[in-house]
């Protein structure tokens, strides 16, 4: 049946011209489409962009119903990387849970750890007893991770569009940051560095100089990267106006993070609900109001530059702290991780001073060490949820404790999982080739989606 544009219009009016005329009055898009579909008898092809695909940004399975080149339905099937991290944590102590939760979203491991540790610290009631040095180191590493996560998202974004140069440049920049991570934490990724109570180790000798060297080079490197990509006509053609998600849609879908800031709303948990001392750092919240893929890319690049500012401030603060014995782990002996590491002739191991202390000098310290390492500390019963602003959006860990030494339940509210629901909204109605930038602009990491 032909939808009528104005009341009183008849079929005769509609059929007056050659060919079929569709008057679209509003709120009747479904009827029009159904009509067209019945009439043209076109075939719809269901295409499976399977879990193994170079362009799906991870093990994501997309089931697309195509009509020609247009996507009429887009469904995402996830779960191909489900690891059972949350259930595994229930069988480990609170400190050991860090090593599991860090591998959820593997591009931003520090953020997973921070979300978990902040929630555990809230239950322990030690939020204001975390040493200042630990907080500064946490902010430093989190912001470096933000930069490396954005690069790890934009690099593969270029790769999926077919631009391998963007990929290689992103990877090259990431290498510098991974070097810093290795210097400070010992690992390039999946560091179990944040613990409930502080961080695992102090800044190593030469760490601050290495970060300063990086900060000297970084603006130039980022500028070169942006020169390559920002005004690139092919990149712009493939990303401008693609995957439009305006503020109303973002609110309906509960979207946070760069996608929300690209829709014009300057919402950043580091500013509105700060933790870890973020309120004392100076930085801006970049916002763009184009609501498209290109806007999200711009927001991410601006965030990289703001993160460099924060890193510089954190390094200055650490350099100002010259007092010896500046603790990086909470001083409460019943919670703070007792072990100290040092570099010996046979590699990194327990520091001889610490061994001498627990074996020779203090029975109490020995007991604490033993109990904390084997049993772990007890966390009071209750539940806590402390969200932080991760590179992908709002990341939080809902932690439930029954008063014991193991988490009763730890659920990671991952922004990638939440935003993947928007795939249908972003892709349907667009071309098949636009599905790729749409998904890449969400910047999902399937480890976080599936956990």
């Amino acid at each position, binding site marked *: 049946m032909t939808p009528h544009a104005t009341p009183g219009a008849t079929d005769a009016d509609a059929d007056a011209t050659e060919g079929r005329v569709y008057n679209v009055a509003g709120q009747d898009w479904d009827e029009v489409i159904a009509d067209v579909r019945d009439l043209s008898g076109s075939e719809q092809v269901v295409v499976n962009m399977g879990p193994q695909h170079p362009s799906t940004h991870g093990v994501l399975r997309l089931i697309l119903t195509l009509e020609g080149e247009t996507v009429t339905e887009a469904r995402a099937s996830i*779960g191909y990387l489900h690891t059972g991290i949350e259930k595994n944590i229930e*069988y480990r102590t609170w400190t050991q849970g860090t090593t599991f939760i860090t591998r959820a979203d593997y591009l931003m491991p520090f953020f997973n750890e921070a979300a978990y540790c902040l929630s555990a610290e809230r239950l322990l009631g030690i939020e204001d007893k975390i040493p200042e040095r630990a907080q500064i180191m946490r902010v430093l590493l989190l912001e470096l991770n933000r930069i490396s996560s954005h690069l790890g998202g934009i690099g593969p974004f270029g790769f999926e569009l077919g631009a391998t140069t963007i990929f290689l440049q992103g990877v090259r920049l990431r290498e510098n940051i991974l070097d810093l991570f290795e210097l400070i934490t010992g690992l390039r990724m999946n560091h179990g560095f944040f613990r409930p109570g502080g961080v695992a180790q102090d800044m190593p000798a030469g760490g601050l100089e290495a970060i300063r060297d990086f900060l000297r080079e970084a603006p130039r490197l980022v500028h070169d990267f942006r020169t390559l990509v920002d005004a690139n006509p092919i990149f712009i053609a493939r990303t401008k106006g693609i995957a439009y998600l305006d503020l109303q849609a973002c609110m309906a879908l*509960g979207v946070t993070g760069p996608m929300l800031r690209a829709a014009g*709303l300057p919402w950043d948990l580091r500013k509105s609900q700060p933790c870890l001392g973020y309120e004392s750092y100076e930085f801006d919240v970049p916002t763009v109001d184009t609501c498209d893929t290109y806007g999200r890319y711009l927001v991410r690049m601006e965030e990289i530059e703001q993160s460099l500012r924060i890193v510089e401030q954190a390094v200055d603060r650490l350099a100002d702290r010259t007092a010896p014995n500046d603790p990086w782990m909470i001083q409460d002996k019943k919670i703070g991780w007792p072990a100290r590491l040092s570099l010996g002739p046979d590699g990194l191991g327990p520091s001889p001073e610490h061994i001498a202390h627990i074996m020779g000098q203090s029975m109490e310290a020995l007991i604490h060490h033993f109990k904390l390492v084997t*049993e772990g500390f007890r966390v009071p019963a209750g539940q806590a*949820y402390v969200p932080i602003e991760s590179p992908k959006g*709002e990341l939080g860990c809902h932690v439930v404790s029954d008063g014991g030494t193991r988490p009763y339940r730890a659920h990671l509210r991952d922004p990638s999982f*939440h935003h*993947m*629901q928007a795939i249908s909204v972003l892709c349907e109605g667009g071309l098949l080739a636009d599905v790729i930038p749409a998904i890449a602009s969400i910047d999902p990491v399937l480890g976080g989606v599936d956990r």
Partner: protein
Amino acid sequence: MSEPEGPPAEDNGGLPARLGEQRLTASVVQTGMFGAEGTGDTSGYGRLQVRKPPPLSSEPPYGGYFDAVAQALGNALEPAGLGFSDAIERVVVEYGEITFHVRRERLVEVADKLLHDPALRFEIFSGVSGVHYPDEAGRELRAVYHLLSITHNRRIRLEVGAPDADPHIPSLTGVYPASNWHERETWDFFGIVFDGHPALTRIEMPDDWRGHPQRKDYPLGGIPVEYRGTKVPPPDERRSYT
């Protein structure tokens, strides 16, 4: 403090011995300490009986913006003929966070008011997750909702309980479309059926998987690990003294 069920306190002036009896009627959740049993238990704690504490409940004033939220919610529910206590079983404020324990029949209305009422405006749905408490008869499965209000910069948590025998909770997809996948995940892992969900299917586990993995009665599923001639059992089968 909410009143736990028990024999009515006899009127003898509230002496301590009688007050303790109310606690004695609560069920036992743990006997002994350290996990050792039978003749292997030489700790002396073998006959210790730990009873379930009464469910937490906070009384107003809650502090901070929680009072404003509770007040606004009460005002919003009134025109619909629902009282605050009709919809909300109890309110718990601890660790600086507020949790509204909502009755499952009233969940959709409460969520609707939370989203649309101008004094509340909890636009962002953060997520649903489940928790399984096998020891709490009648409310084993819980669905925990986190909501964020950008307008007022507030956070609250809703908790809805359902028994194992009847694990149905109304779906919030009509109010918050963003709850779609979270409810699917909670169904997948806990078996909570969200009535009214457009497509409640498994999302993380394979489609033909049996069982709901994150329930406490589902095993971790690991295998013993062989290393240098001995075998280490998987984490859920190891001895534990805590």
